[in-house]
């Protein structure tokens, strides 16, 4: 029975997307154009440059394209579905999360799991097409592919809890659009979405090493392209696991505190 509930909650977003063909078409077009633009930009930048910041042209292009594909893992139009925590807080409907037989934290996790699996299907499809077209390089060895897969999984675990922390922030602040935007910006910048962290100054790389964001994307992609050698991968995986555990415990604590703050219809 619990599995049935889980399945029903997890498939909400994928079903919503599958019933909106225009949105899926938009996602497809955006993904294709974004991959072409990003690959073209990095090829263009390397036109008169050799290896820079330890990255050759193929590595930089592969990193940038994989970052675009990875963005599909958590970029669904939840707002259109009116099921973001921010919207529920705004409209006072968050109280329903606490009236269901399913605990809110489990509902949130299951929805995210469904989204991430759906997004993964998009990313995997895009990756296979890019690989076949020669846009991205293949991993250098099966061992690299295996470690990358494990690192990607850990990265998604960390990412879920980073995003969950943002959602939980809504319980403490009445209007927090700006705080959310700032944290999303920090996540994108410090995880290497805008540009690989290797291009940034040393102090920036050191700073990002103390934060959880680089564990979400920069580490797995750097392992894939070989910028982090397999000999150093163990330490990086341990750091990812540390952030996963720490954020899991922290968000669990916040869920308990948040439950005491839920208000409906003014109190």
């Amino acid at each position: 029975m619990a599995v049935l509930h889980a399945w029903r909650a997890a498939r909400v977003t994928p079903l919503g997307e599958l019933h909106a063909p225009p949105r899926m078409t938009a996602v497809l077009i955006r993904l294709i154009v974004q991959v072409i633009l990003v690959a073209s930009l990095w090829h263009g930048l390397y036109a008169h440059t050799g290896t820079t910041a330890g990255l050759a042209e193929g590595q930089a292009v592969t990193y940038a394209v994989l970052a675009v594909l990875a963005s599909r893992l958590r970029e669904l139009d939840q707002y259109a579905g009116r099921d973001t925590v921010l919207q529920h807080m705004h409209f006072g409907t968050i109280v329903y999360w606490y009236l269901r037989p399913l605990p809110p934290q489990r509902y949130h996790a299951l929805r995210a799991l469904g989204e991430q699996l759906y997004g993964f299907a998009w990313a995997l499809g895009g990756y296979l097409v890019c690989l076949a077209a020669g846009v991205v390089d293949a991993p250098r060895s099966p061992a690299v592919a295996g470690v990358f897969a494990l690192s990607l999984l850990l990265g998604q675990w960390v990412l879920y809890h980073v995003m969950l922390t943002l959602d939980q922030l809504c319980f403490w602040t009445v209007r927090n659009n700006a705080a959310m935007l700032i944290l999303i910006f920090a996540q994108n910048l410090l995880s290497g979405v805008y540009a690989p962290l290797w291009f940034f100054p040393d102090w920036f790389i050191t700073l990002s090493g103390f934060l959880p964001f680089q564990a979400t994307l920069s580490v797995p992609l750097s392992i894939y392209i070989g910028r982090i050698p397999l000999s150093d991968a163990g330490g990086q995986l341990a750091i990812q696991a540390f952030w996963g555990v720490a954020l899991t415990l922290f968000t669990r604590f916040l869920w308990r505190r948040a439950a005491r703050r839920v208000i409906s219809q003014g109190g």
Partner: protein
Amino acid sequence: MNGMRIAWRITRLNFRAQLEYRTEFLLMIAIGAIWQVSVIVFATVLLTRFTGMGGWDSSEVLLIPATRMLAHGLFVLVLGRVHGAGRQIQEGRIDIYLTRPMPVHRQLQLAFFPTNAIGDLTVAVGLMVGALSRSRLDWTPGRISYLIAALIGGMLLEAALFTAVACAALRFPAADYWGRWLEELLGTFGSYPLNVLPRAVGGLLTYGLPLAFVAYFPAAVLTGHGHDTGVPYWLAAASPLLGVVAYLGSRLLWRWSLRHYAGVNG
């Protein structure tokens, strides 16, 4: 004149409303600044690692993001509420606007005060001052006038693009998704010499999505790269005018789209 007075009073009230939540107000200013700083960080990183981008030196390249960011800041302040109009359409607010004795477009623009524009403009002005101080160009009255025209043209062109998305959102509320992508494209590819891209891709960002006209072409004309952009010189030079024409066209499209707006219940 009366309309202007009402618009000013509503703007003042909206500003006071934003001040109600002081922390959120300050954070909104911060987000505008931070978002712009991200463009500077990315541009600085690229300029440091890849010198001589597309045959432009770094002081010339800097003029592109400075122009784009300042035009964007003005857009956010003056006409920016059209971005995100899909949200107001989804919430049915357009139906309320239709019943009031004020043009719907004006009500849309007066819906709230864009606090983040303060941060946007602060950083953009700072970057423009930096770009002009590093520039080796002779800033004659003609060049200064062209730069001002380019900023206004860039603002109007960005407004035209988002107005077109808002027109689509009147029919398909999910079109708001395209607005977010458009913002991302403008931020990512609107700040660099597009001649680093392959000709076909540069053509797409010129004729498909006229992103090159916002800052790249005006900066090319100002810095003497106007003949190397891949389009006729007169077309690159006419960028500010294109912004005006595009915005007027988008307003006509808006008027037409609003006449065909059916709302949720048909």
